[in-house]
């Protein structure tokens, strides 16, 4: 109270001092218009303390001047318009300068507040960027927010891959975490909103009682704002802090995701390295075996026919071993998530290549193709699908009776090619129809039990399906493959 009245006291004291000075001067010299000194006083009062003290000062000055200097001296009488005019001028000067100074001061204090905000934000942002741990910066930020008037709580929760994790501003209750998660999942703020660069309280909110939730790009800001709206500039500052928190949480998530991707990549690289070294370790001795065995098969080696037969059998076994190793590696590669080299291919060409490769083992088997010439191309990994076709063809060859026939067909429908491989061998037991694609399932002594499992994985990696069924003629394997999106003919 005293602080608010002090300027008025100064105004009156100033008027007294100026009156004394005028009295002193006019007792020695005869100077006209000394009352102008009062103008100086009023100007100074207006500029320094505003309108009120200036008016008080100007009224006091007028009264004193009237009392001490205007004849009849010693009375407070106003005689004639000239004195009234003098009073009016003093009052007008007081009002105008007070007004001007006041608005100037308001602009200045607003600018200072803004500069303070900016400095605070700048300090926070640089601290955030400098500290490698985002959580440190977030804690600083939360502390800064809680120094704002009316903000009693400011917590930040990161949403990591669907998991709420409090990072700054203290622990949250289970219920609050649920609320935060809901707010984040539905992208719906609870109790507050940010609009026009300021945090605004929502009217529906029970004032101050409960925490408010503001969903951000990678987390949620949880805050409690006291009843009775805080200062607008504080709410703007709060919005700026929320914006910075949003950026920091986002940066944290980007770092996490990069780390995670690097982890996956490293484990993929490790798997690939193990597979490739395993492949080398297993295949090298088999390669030596086959080179040695087949070298001795040359007539120049001078072996007897029955010895050569034995070697041929051994070479056949080495070859089988190689196939088994190859199948196991192929399966583990597929399970590790092999990258498909997908390109448009003519399905008839893929079947042709598989048949060409199998020609020695098919041994003149009758194969009937039912593939239209104008079938649109499929978009597949040539080698992987080649594996499917050789597996299914070999399987069919295994089961078709002597002189029996294998049929291969394909048709296109709505973006997918449906292909089948059928033989006229014995039916598969109904209970076994689903099991044939299981790893190591085999009906024959010679198979690795991996061919159909590999086929299923390859087809599914392409987004297709594969199934076994018994047709009237015999077992049929049907699978689907994606057609090329653009028919890339010339």
């Amino acid at each position: 109270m005293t602080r608010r009245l002090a300027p008025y006291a100064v105004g009156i004291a100033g008027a007294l001092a100026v009156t004394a000075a005028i009295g002193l001067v006019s007792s020695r010299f005869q100077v006209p218009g000394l009352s102008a000194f009062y103008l100086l006083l009023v100007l100074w009062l207006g500029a320094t303390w505003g309108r009120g003290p200036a008016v008080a000062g100007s009224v006091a000055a007028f009264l004193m001047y009237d009392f001490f200097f205007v004849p009849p001296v010693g009375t407070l009488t106003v005689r004639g318009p000239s004195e009234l005019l003098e009073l009016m001028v003093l009052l007008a000067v007081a009002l105008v300068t007070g007004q001007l100074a006041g608005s100037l001061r308001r602009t200045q204090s607003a600018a200072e507040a803004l500069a303070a905000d900016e400095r605070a934000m700048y300090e926070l942002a640089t601290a955030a960027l400098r500290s490698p741990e985002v959580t440190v910066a977030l804690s600083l930020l939360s502390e800064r927010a809680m120094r704002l008037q009316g903000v009693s709580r400011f917590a930040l929760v990161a949403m990591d891959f669907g998991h709420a994790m409090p990072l700054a501003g203290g622990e949250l209750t289970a219920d609050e975490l649920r609320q935060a998660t809901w707010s984040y999942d539905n992208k719906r703020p609870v109790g507050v909103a940010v609009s026009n660069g300021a945090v605004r309280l929502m009217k529906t909110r029970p004032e101050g009682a409960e925490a408010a939730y503001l969903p951000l790009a990678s987390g949620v800001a949880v805050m409690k704002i006291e009843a009775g709206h805080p200062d607008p500039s504080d709410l703007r500052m709060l919005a700026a802090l929320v914006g910075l928190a949003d950026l920091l949480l986002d940066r944290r998530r980007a770092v996490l995701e990069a780390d995670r991707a690097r982890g996956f990549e490293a484990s993929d690289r490790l798997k690939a390295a193990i597979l490739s070294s395993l492949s080398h370790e297993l295949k090298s001795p088999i390669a030596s075996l086959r080179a040695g065995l087949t070298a001795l098969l040359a007539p120049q080696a001078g072996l007897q026919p029955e010895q050569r037969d034995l070697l041929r059998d051994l070479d056949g076994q080495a070859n089988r071993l190689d196939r088994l190793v190859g199948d196991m590696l192929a399966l583990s590669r597929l399970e590790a998530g092999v990258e498909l080299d997908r390109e448009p291919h003519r399905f008839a060409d893929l079947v042709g290549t598989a048949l060409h490769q199998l020609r020695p083992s098919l041994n003149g088997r009758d194969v009937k193709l039912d593939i239209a010439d104008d079938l649109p191309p499929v978009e597949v990994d040539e080698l992987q699908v080649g594996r499917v076709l050789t597996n299914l063809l070999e399987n069919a060859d295994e089961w078709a009776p002597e002189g029996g026939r294998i049929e291969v067909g394909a048709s296109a429908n709505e973006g997918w090619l449906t292909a089948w491989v059928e033989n006229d061998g014995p039916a598969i037991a109904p209970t076994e129809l689903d099991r044939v694609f299981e790893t190591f399932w085999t009906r024959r002594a010679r198979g690795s039990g991996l061919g159909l499992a590999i086929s299923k994985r390859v087809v599914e990696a392409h987004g297709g399906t594969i199934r076994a069924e018994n047709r009237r003629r015999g077992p049929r394997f049907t699978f689907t493959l994606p057609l090329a999106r653009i028919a890339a003919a010339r």
Partner: protein
Amino acid sequence: MQRALRAGLRYHDFEVRAVGTGEEAVREAAAWRPDVILLDLGLPGMDGFATLRALRPATRAGVIVVSVMPGEKDKVRALDAGADDYVVKPFGTDELVARIRAVLRRQADVRAGEPVIRTGDLEIDLARRSVTTAGRAVKLTPTEYELLRYLALHAGKPVTHTTLLRQVWGEYAIGDKYNTRYVVAQIRKKLGDDPANPRYIVNEPGVGYRLQA
């Protein structure tokens, strides 16, 4: 492996020298001047591909790359780096000998410089740009002829999709392997060639095509 190969190849009357590293291979190739080099990509010391690149200026010998790696990318890379052919371990001696003979035959053909290439009953007259199968003329479009001609000039050797694209469609061809697949299918149709039982053009899965020699 080395001993088995050396024995096997000697039984087929080849003269063989074996070295253990890429550096030695480059030296030996320049000094001894072999006709065919078997190059294992999994060499100790100098990397297999580096050896392949170093061999190319040092020798005119055909290079057959031997690899245990099943990846087709390596085959393509080796062929594009100047290899004449590749075999994947494990392989039988018969298969290897057949590949070596094919490379040797091709060298002889190239040296003879005959303007007519014959494979089975397919005849390609380079001077007259005409193609016949069993004496019957086959009409090919210019693109089809260029592709067949390039395969014929390298008969027996696998030619990669990229090489075909560059040779047939030009240096700045926008690579679409389906172009080559489509054109090869057209040529096969006109030649009466069945991909399941090819007499002329054999598909090399993941790599390209080979005209049977």
